[in-house]
C-alpha cells in the first residue's frame, strides 16, 4: 500500500462539475471578447467551442461533448419552451395573412432548396430531406440574440413566431419523408409506419401531459414568480428527460409543452416567468458545446453546394415574407430584414441529420457533408445576421 494513495491519479479526469465550470468560464471569456468587436455574445461562445473543440486545440474531446449532453438538453428545453410560449394561436387566428406568411415561409424555403439541389443532380430523396431540414430557423440563436439586444417590436415578435412554426414544419417534413426512404430500402412496414407515428404522437402526448401538469401546478402554487420559476424549470427538464428516455423528439415535446402551456391557459394561471441569469448559464454551455461540435472537415468539397443551399434557403424565405409580409401588417422595409433575421440554422438541423443518419448511415454521411457544412457556416453568419436585422429595424434596446 502506497503512502501517497491520498493523491489523485494522473492524468486528471474531467468530472461534470469541472467540465461545467470550465465551459462556463471559457464561454464567458469568448462572449466578452466578442462584445469588444460588437459581435453577439453567442458568436463568442461558439468560437471558443470551435477553438477548444476536437477540430481545434482538442481540449473538448468528443467524449467530453457527450458528457455535457445534460447541460445542452436543459438549455434546449428552456429555449424551446420559451419559443413555444411565443406561438400565439389567437394572433394567427386574427391575422390570417400572418398564418399564410408562416406557411409560405416554410414551404418556399423547402421548394427553393429542393429544386436547387435537383438542378445540381442530387437525387429526389436527398434533395427533399436536405430541404426539409433547411426549413427550420435556429430557435436558440434568434431567441438569445433577441434577449441580448433586449429587442422588442413587430419584427422581433414575428421572427420568434415564424421560428416556432418553421421548426415544427421542419420536424414534420423530415418525419414524413423518412418512411418513403425506408420504403425505398425495403424496410418492413412496421418500422416504416409505426416509427414516425410513435415519435410524433408520443412527443405530442408528452408535451400535452406536461402542459396539463404545468397548468395544474401553477394553479396550485398561485401567482408567486419564484415558485413558478422552479416548477417550470423542473417540468421542462423532466419533459426533456422523458422525451430522451422514450426515444421521442425533444423538439416536438418541448415546443408542444410551451405552445399548450400558453394557449390552453384559459384561467391565466401561469405567470410570464423569465429565465434570466439562471438560464444564461445553460445558454453559454449550449453554444460552447455547439461550437465544439461544428464540422468543417467537409468544407473544401461541400463549400459550393453548401453556399447554394444557404442562398436558396434564404431566397425562399425572403420571397414568402416579401409577398405576404405587407399583407400581414409588416411595415414597409421590414420584410427584407425579417428574412435576414431568420437566417440562422443550428442544433436542430444537426439533430435532424443525426436522426436520419441513424436509419441510413451512408446516405446520412453525404447529407451531413452538405447540411452540416451549411450549418457550420450559418452558425458563424447567422447570429450576426439576426443582430444586424434587429438593430437595423430599430428594435434593439438602448445600450446600457
Amino acid at each position, binding site marked *: 500500500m502506497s503512502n501517497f494513495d491520498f493523491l489523485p491519479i494522473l492524468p486528471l479526469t474531467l468530472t461534470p462539475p469541472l467540465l461545467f465550470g470550465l465551459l462556463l468560464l471559457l464561454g464567458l471569456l469568448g462572449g466578452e471578447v466578442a462584445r469588444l468587436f460588437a459581435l453577439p455574445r453567442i458568436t463568442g461562445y461558439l468560437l471558443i467551442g470551435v477553438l477548444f473543440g476536437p477540430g481545434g486545440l482538442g481540449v473538448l474531446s468528443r467524449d467530453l461533448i457527450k458528457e455535457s449532453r445534460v447541460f445542452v438538453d436543459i438549455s434546449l428545453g428552456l429555449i424551446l419552451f420559451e419559443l413555444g410560449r411565443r406561438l400565439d394561436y389567437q394572433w394567427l387566428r386574427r391575422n390570417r395573412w400572418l398564418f399564410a406568411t408562416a406557411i409560405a415561409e416554410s414551404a418556399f424555403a423547402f421548394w427553393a432548396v429542393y429544386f436547387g439541389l435537383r438542378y445540381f443532380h442530387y437525387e429526389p430523396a436527398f434533395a427533399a430531406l436536405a430541404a426539409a431540414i433547411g426549413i427550420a430557423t435556429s430557435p436558440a440563436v434568434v431567441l438569445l440574440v433577441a434577449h441580448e439586444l433586449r429587442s422588442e417590436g413587430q419584427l422581433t415578435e414575428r421572427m420568434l413566431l415564424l421560428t416556432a412554426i418553421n421548426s415544427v414544419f421542419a420536424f414534420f417534413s423530415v418525419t414524413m419523408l423518412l418512411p418513403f426512404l425506408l420504403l425505398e430500402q425495403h424496410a418492413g412496414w412496421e418500422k416504416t409506419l409505426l416509427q414516425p407515428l410513435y415519435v410524433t404522437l408520443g412527443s405530442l402526448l408528452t408535451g400535452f401531459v406536461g402542459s396539463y401538469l404545468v397548468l395544474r401546478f401553477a394553479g396550485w402554487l398561485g*401567482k408567486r414568480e419564484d415558485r413558478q420559476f422552479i416548477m417550470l424549470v423542473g417540468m421542462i427538464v423532466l419533459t426533456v428527460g422523458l422525451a430522451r428516455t422514450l426515444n421521442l423528439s425533444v423538439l416536438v415535446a418541448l415546443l408542444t409543452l410551451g405552445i399548450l402551456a400558453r394557449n390552453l391557459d384559459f384561467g391565466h394561471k401561469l405567470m410570464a416567468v423569465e429565465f434570466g441569469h439562471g438560464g444564461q448559464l445553460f445558454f453559454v454551455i449550449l453554444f460552447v458545446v455547439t461550437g465544439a461540435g461544428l464540422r468543417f472537415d467537409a468544407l473544401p468539397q461541400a463549400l459550393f453546394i453548401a453556399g447554394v443551399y444557404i442562398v436558396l434557403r434564404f431566397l425562399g424565405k425572403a420571397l414568402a415574407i416579401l409577398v405576404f409580409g405587407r399583407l400581414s401588417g409588416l411595415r414597409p422595409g421590414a420584410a427584407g430584414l425579417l428574412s435576414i433575421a431568420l437566417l440562422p440554422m443550428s442544433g436542430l438541423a444537426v439533430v435532424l441529420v443525426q436522426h436520419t443518419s441513424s436509419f441510413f448511415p451512408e446516405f446520412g454521411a453525404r447529407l451531413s457533408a452538405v447540411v452540416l457544412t451549411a450549418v457550420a457556416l450559418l452558425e458563424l453568419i447567422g447570429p450576426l445576421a439576426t443582430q444586424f436585422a434587429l438593430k437595423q429595424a430599430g428594435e434593439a434596446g438602448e445600450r446600457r
Partner: protein
Amino acid sequence: MTLEFTQSQACTTGVELELQLLKSHDCNLARDAADLLARLGKVKHPGQVKPEITESMIELNSSIHTHYTALADELRTIRNVVVREAELLNLRVAGGGTHPFHQWSERRIYPTERFKHLLNLYGYLAKQFTVFGQHIHIGCPNGDDAVYLIHMLSRHVPHFIALSASSPFYQGEDTGFASSRLNAISAFPLSGTMPFVQSWDEFNAYFDRMYCFKIVESMKDFYWDIRPKPDYGTVEIRVCDTPLTVDKAARIAAFAQALANYYLTERPKRATRDIYLVYNYNRFQACRYGFAANFINAYDESHSSLGDDLIATLKLLAPYAETLESGSALNQLLDETAARRNDSYWLREQLKKSGSLNDVARLQSNLWMGKPERS
C-alpha cells in the same frame, strides 16, 4: 407676443385620450406605436390618432361635439378601429393613468423632433412621463370667458381627479394613491396652475413676459392642470387619468361640459385667490384618497368629504346637463360616486382576485377593448 383667442361655440367639447400599448404575451408596455399609427393612417376613422412622448403610447382625439351621446358613439367607433388594427399586430390597448408594472427606464422616446427636444430638456422625467391622461376641451366664446371658466373649474379639480382616478399602481407597487399619475407631472417646472389673472389681456401680458424671458415658446410648454388653448378657442382640463373605458371618458367630458354650462350661463361666483390657497391641499387629498378625501370649500371655509361635495355638485348640475342632453351620464356618475367606486377601486379589486399585476394589465386592456373576459 400676444395670443389671439379663437372664438368657438360655448360648451362644445372634445377629448384626447392617452392610451397604453401592451404586448400580448406578458402585458408589459410594447414599443409598437409607430407601426400601429402607420396602419391607422391608412384606414378611415373619425377623429385622429397621434403619437405621444414614448413608443408605448398613442393619443386618440375625438372631433368637436355638442352632445354627449355623439361623443360617446364616436369614441366607441374610434376605439373599435384602433382595437382591430392593434390585434393584427398582436397588441393590446388599455386605459388607466399608469401602467401597473412597467419600468420607466425601459421606455424609448418616440422619434420626432419635439419629443427628442423634451428628452434633452427634461432627461429622465421625459421617460417617467409615460403616464396616461384624459384631456377635455371646452369651447369658450372669448378669452375672458376662458379665464373665468379656468378659475371656476379649478375648484372642481379634485372632482375630476376622484372621478377619473385609475392609477393606483406604479412601477410594480401599490402606491396607496387613487391617482399616482399626477405625481409624475408635478415634477415638471411649468406644471401647476394658471396665474391669478382676470382677463385675456392680463393673461397675454403674463404670457408675453414668460415669452420674453424665453421660458416658453408656446402654450404647449405650460403643463398646467387647466390651461387655455387659444388656437382651439378652448379651456383644456388636464388632470384626469385616462379612464378604463371610453364610455367613462365620455361621461367625465359630459360633467365638464355641464360645469361649463352652469358657470358661463349663471356666473354664480367671482374668482377669488382663496381657490388657489386651498388648491394644492385639495388636489393632494383627491389624488391620495379619491372620493374619501377631505375637501375644503374656498368660498365658505367648510370641510366635507370630497364624495359628498361631488354628489352635491352633480345634483346642482342636473338642470344644466338636461339642456345638454347629458342627464343620463351625470346620473351614472352620481351612482358611481354614491357607491364610492372609481377605476382605481376596480383595479385594486382585480389584483386581489387575480394575484398579479400582469393579470391586472390584461384585465384592464380587455375592459378598454370592449372584450370582458369569460370567467
